[in-house]
């Protein structure tokens, strides 16, 4: 199987395929889907805790008629030291038609994809990629803007540890957006500038938000931090929290997005999260549509 039989990241996702997924999600939004995956069984293999992504895949699969099997790191053989591949071989033997993998190690879904004969979908791997999140973010923007080309998108927060930032960076810059990354320098390595010509870096949140059409806010991923990257949460809030005040620098109708989970009062103030500009809950709804599109594409009947 090759890249086109899986969804491992945005990096190797061909433009026509990307477009197809966005279009298909729009179709699903207009009319309820048929049960095209009836009789299929989807394995949700989650090595990292997740509420929204796992539930979203589960709802998406069921709406298409598929059955889901949940395996999480807690309460399984994974706990007992079984290797990732051994776990996958075992579960594959129980008639599985596709595998959704979430893992703390970057590249874990690639390893799985190299060793099974069913489609593998990356539901977030370490600091690498989270392709369905980027797709649902693009889809959400397109509900409010005719095109992504030319949009000024600011991504603010813990860029270094964020797979969402990486996937969005790849996808949005490919679709022609101007992407501004913003965070303290310790969480925003200069090498990110190498991602593309329309990518810029800023350590100043007001500068990054200036004239922005879309503001994506990212959580500080304490669980991936092994040492201190900034002096204190209070100092982070003082310098980088997206507040109503700071949002004034952006376009008046700028969309505010957040992949969740939100920590109110830290990376984003409560009033911004709940403002009319916020499409955070819409992102969650759209997540189901995008994941249905992905599941239908990879597991559904080939046209």
């Amino acid at each position, binding site marked *: 199987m090759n890249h086109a039989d899986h969804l491992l990241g945005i*990096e190797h996702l061909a433009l026509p395929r990307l477009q197809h997924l966005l279009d298909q999600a729009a179709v699903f939004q207009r009319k309820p889907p048929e049960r095209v995956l009836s009789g299929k069984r989807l394995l949700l293999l989650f090595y990292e805790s997740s509420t929204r992504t796992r539930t979203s895949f589960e709802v998406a699969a069921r709406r298409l008629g598929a059955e889901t099997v949940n395996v999480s790191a807690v309460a399984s053989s994974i706990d007992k030291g079984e*290797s*990732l*591949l051994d776990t996958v071989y075992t579960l594959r033997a129980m008639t599985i038609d596709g595998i959704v993998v979430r*893992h703390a*190690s*970057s*590249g*874990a879904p*690639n*390893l799985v994809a190299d*060793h099974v004969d069913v489609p593998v979908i990356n539901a977030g*791997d*370490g*600091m*690498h*990629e989270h392709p369905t999140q980027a797709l649902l973010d693009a889809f959400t923007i397109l509900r409010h803007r005719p095109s992504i080309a030319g949009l000024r998108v600011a991504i603010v927060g813990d860029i270094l540890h964020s*797979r969402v930032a*990486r996937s969005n960076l790849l996808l949005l810059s490919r679709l022609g957006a101007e992407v501004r990354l913003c965070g303290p320098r310790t969480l925003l*390595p200069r*090498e*990110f500038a*190498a*991602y593309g010509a329309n990518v810029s870096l800023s350590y100043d949140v007001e500068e990054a938000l200036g004239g922005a059409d879309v503001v994506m806010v990212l959580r500080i991923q304490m669980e991936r931090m*092994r*040492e201190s990257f900034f002096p204190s949460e209070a100092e982070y809030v003082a310098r980088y929290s997206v507040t109503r005040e700071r949002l004034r620098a952006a376009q008046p109708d700028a969309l505010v997005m957040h992949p969740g989970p939100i920590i109110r009062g830290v990376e984003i103030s409560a009033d911004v999260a709940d403002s009319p500009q916020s499409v955070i809950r819409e992102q969650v709804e759209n997540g189901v549509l995008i994941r249905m599109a992905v599941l239908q594409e990879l597991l559904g009947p080939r046209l």
Partner: protein
Amino acid sequence: MNLILKNGRLFDPSRGLDQIGDVVLQDDRIRGLGPDIAAAGPGVVDCTGLIVTPGFIDLHVHLREPGFEYKETIETGTRAAAAGGFTAVCAMPNTQPVNDNAGGTAFLLLRAREFGHARLYPIGAITEGSRGERLAALGAMRQAGAVGFSDDGRPVMNAQMLRRALEYSSMFPVPVIEHAEDLHLSAGGSMHAGPRALQLGLRGISSTSEAAMVARDLLLAEEVGGHIHIAHLSTAASVRLVREAKSRGVLVTCEVTPHHFTLCDEDLVPYDANFKMNPPLRGAADREALIAGLADGTIDAIATDHAPHAAHEKLQEFDKAPFGIIGLETALPLSLRLVTEGRLSLARMVDALTCAPARIFHLPGGSLAPGALADLTVFDPAAEWTCDPALSLSKSRNTPFAGWQLTGRPVYTIVGGRLIPNPALAATPPVS
């Protein structure tokens, strides 16, 4: 028993020797050499078209015995060494238990005498259990046969400890070998810190994590006058630091691995742990600096850092898989690539594989002079072959060079006058 290597290209950079001729071996010594000095007859090995050099010496291998025999043993590791043209290897002490006492050192030599296909020179640990807390039994290990000390795999983070080790071992005198890595700077890393690591979402091991430690070690060696040997140099900054220290007369030597002068981080196949080693594959500019350093002699030796691991250990998430790759059987052809590309002279290559290692670690061999140890390597510089890990004589298969078309292969390895035809060559001409 006598052995006559007939009509080979005799090549010994330590003596400026490069001529077609014969070598006569008697028992475990080189008896004589010169153009056409021996007639055909029993014990004659035709070396026409082959290059005859002093036996290759690898300053840095992991044989995994005792404790990790499922990865490698002294028998399989030295067999792979002989197949790669190495007549001697220096065995790193990070076994289970760690070789940190005379008994451990004696055990290795005993096993090598019984099962070895190449000579084994033990490296003893610098600190007990390589934990960095107390000096290991350096004198006792030296007496038992250790040729150097290292906590390889782990740097000596405590500068005072390294300083004492350098002072103490300078009495013997043997080198202190440092795996240079500041563990705070490299914490959690699994590949070279750079754009590629960032993109793959892998934590980086910065070049500075090595160079900062090299700088510290050079200052300590200069202060106490001990011999520091930097293992597997991987960064341009390290090369620069060593070059500068050497120019001021600091007693420093160092080595580079074939994988570091062949590959860089851009060559890494994403998430394939056969590309995971420590130090990691660096940037293209680092690779260039390593080649330049090897060519101008700043880097003394080529060493493989042969580090076998079982298949299931490498078939893991990239950040979980252990560091290290095997390298004994691919060292010669990868080194010859630099010669073919005009980046390295044949003389410097052979020097770095044999004469220099013998010289800097005070080991026998490394010379074709009459009376020298009859450890020789005979290789075909034009033999073309494909690297197939399944055919490796090592117990392990973890190489990033699978499928590579390689040129150059040992035909005979001679250890103490004993001829070992390369088992990988089915059509090896018989000894007449």
